[in-house]
């Protein structure tokens, strides 16, 4: 690279907010001539090539340290000091007010959280708040027999959840206190159970009892289903859970309508969009 071309590449100093220094380096370094040796001809092409030495002082840092002011999923709890990519930290955390730069004042604020009586909610893992949110927006089917007698047990729930794509160990499932029998007029009604993620984080999960013999009979399978079963208005098995079930049903409906509007406006994007209409 010729020196002239290097200088041409650098923008004029007027463009910078500060006058900058430009450092050049010979691409073919000169050797000091020994005694009696003739000087090198400095007018050759090799002697006029230079390289630009980048000034690292001016470079912007790639990551920044921030202090979280509230719980951010996947990043941390209140008062945590974390290092995040620059643009993400600025536009996703600091501008919306979820965090601030790790200034000495902010660090001092983070240290004195307990003295002010602010509760710090911590989850056992990064992914657990996501699963808690996901479970609120879904209904799982409990397909149970009408003919054979049963009382609801943990392994019933565990195997049904796994067959529908949710892996839960038996220790994590907490059923309602009242025992549920097949005689109680259960079918078509909802219950809510708690699932303890990593033995600590509590998630609420909605289940609906569905009759096996009726669903699997050829007569019902030939019927055309106009709308999926999970959209029907829920009725609670226990009256104490009725308010919470209605609240969770609204969340399901909001997601369903948003998804159908997306399909109407943009068309099918994947085969998964077809599964909006459930099979059972």
């Amino acid at each position: 690279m010729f020196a002239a071309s290097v200088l041409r590449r650098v923008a004029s100093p007027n463009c910078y907010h500060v006058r900058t220094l430009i450092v050049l380096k010979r691409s073919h370094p000169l050797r000091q001539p020994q005694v009696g040796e003739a000087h090198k001809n400095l007018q050759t092409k090799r002697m006029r090539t230079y390289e630009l030495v980048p000034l690292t002082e001016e470079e912007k840092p790639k990551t920044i340290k921030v202090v979280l002011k509230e719980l951010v999923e996947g990043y941390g709890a209140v008062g945590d000091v974390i290092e995040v990519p620059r643009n993400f930290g600025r536009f996703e955390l600091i501008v919306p007010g979820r965090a601030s730069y790790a200034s000495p004042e902010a660090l001092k604020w983070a240290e004195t959280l307990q003295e002010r009586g602010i509760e710090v909610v911590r989850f056992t893992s990064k992914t657990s708040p996501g699963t808690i949110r996901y479970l609120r927006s879904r209904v799982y089917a409990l397909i149970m027999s009408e003919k054979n007698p049963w009382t609801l047990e943990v392994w019933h729930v565990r195997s049904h959840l796994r067959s529908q794509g949710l892996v839960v160990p038996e220790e994590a499932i907490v059923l309602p206190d009242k025992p549920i029998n097949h005689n109680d007029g259960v079918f078509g009604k909802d219950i809510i159970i708690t699932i303890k993620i990593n033995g600590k984080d509590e998630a609420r999960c909605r289940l609906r009892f569905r009759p096996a013999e009726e669903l699997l009979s050829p007569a019902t399978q030939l019927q055309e289903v106009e709308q999926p079963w999970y959209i029907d208005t829920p009725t609670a098995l226990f009256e104490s859970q009725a308010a919470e079930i209605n609240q969770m049903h609204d969340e399901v409906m909001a997601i369903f309508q948003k998804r159908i509007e997306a399909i109407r406006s943009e068309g099918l994007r994947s085969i998964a969009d077809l599964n909006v209409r459930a099979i059972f």
Partner: protein
Amino acid sequence: MSVGMLRGLLEGLRKPSSGLLSLAVQTPYVEQVRGYPTQKYFKILAENRKRNRIRKLQKLEQPKKTFAEIQKSKLKRTVLGSRRYTEKDWPKQINSDDVHLLKEVVRPTFDLESCIQMHREVLHPQMYNHANSLVMATVELDMTSKKRGHFVDQISGSLLLPHFFEYKRQVTRILCFTKSPDEATLALERGANLAGGEQLVKKIEAGEVDVASFDTVVCDLNMYEKIQSLKNILKKQMPRLGNTDAISEDVLNLIERHRKAVLFSASGDLYEPDYAAFTVPIARLQMPIDHIRANIKELFVGVNHLGPRGRPPNSFITEIFLSCPPSLERLVLDKTPFLIAPSQNAPAGRARAPTAEPEE
């Protein structure tokens, strides 16, 4: 006109003219002109020529896109995804909680016992109430042949499973060659669709019988030499010596076994010619596990030898899933205990399938 001539003309015009005649008198200044490039530019031209020649050769070396690659590129434009169960479908971020969605983890493979146990739980009389449901095995195949860009078109065959179970099976059409007419009547009673001796051979030679409508051809050991004239008609259905499923001394027993056989066939996908899959019933849920294991082992042996020649052993079957209708769950089976040892890969007692060889 060269550059030197132009320059001379311009210089002549630029000079202040003293009189009217001066333009007419002034002649353009002519430089020495070469008809060939200078030494400096000749080098550059030679370099360029050399570079172009290398690029041309590199283009020739690049292989053309095969049919399969073109079809796969078309698939990306459609809504449909790849049907193959691959690592690409698995998520990059892995959820390590004890409670997680199956989407969020690399899907595990299960051994046979835990697979069956899981299905038994879901289809329990207290739940789905289908305790004795069929166990269906879905087999994914890799249809690439040894030659690049060529694929196995389709495969078909029948499995003689060691442990019998009841289900509405597809009827196999059996052609039987027997030594005596008495035996032929017995064979028809046992379930053969057509049976006969030397007269049947003559009928087939004359073209009165359509051989293509039969799934399997069974032959008595004594009749083997008399069939040899049908070699060109039966082609790959021709029973061969050493194939215990096609030739034996006790034909009636063989027919009974073929009557209980399970048929399967698979053909390559339109968009992914190297992909094919089929599902076959393998067992009932309440059968003992040793029986189910023996049936699956037979499935591996029966399908693996249909693969194209020259491929490494055990590369034909890529994945096996177990499912039990009406439950929609599909579990990935750990296939390591069922893999076939290389010496056992091509058993002597089996004929090759009718359309196993790649189309050329």
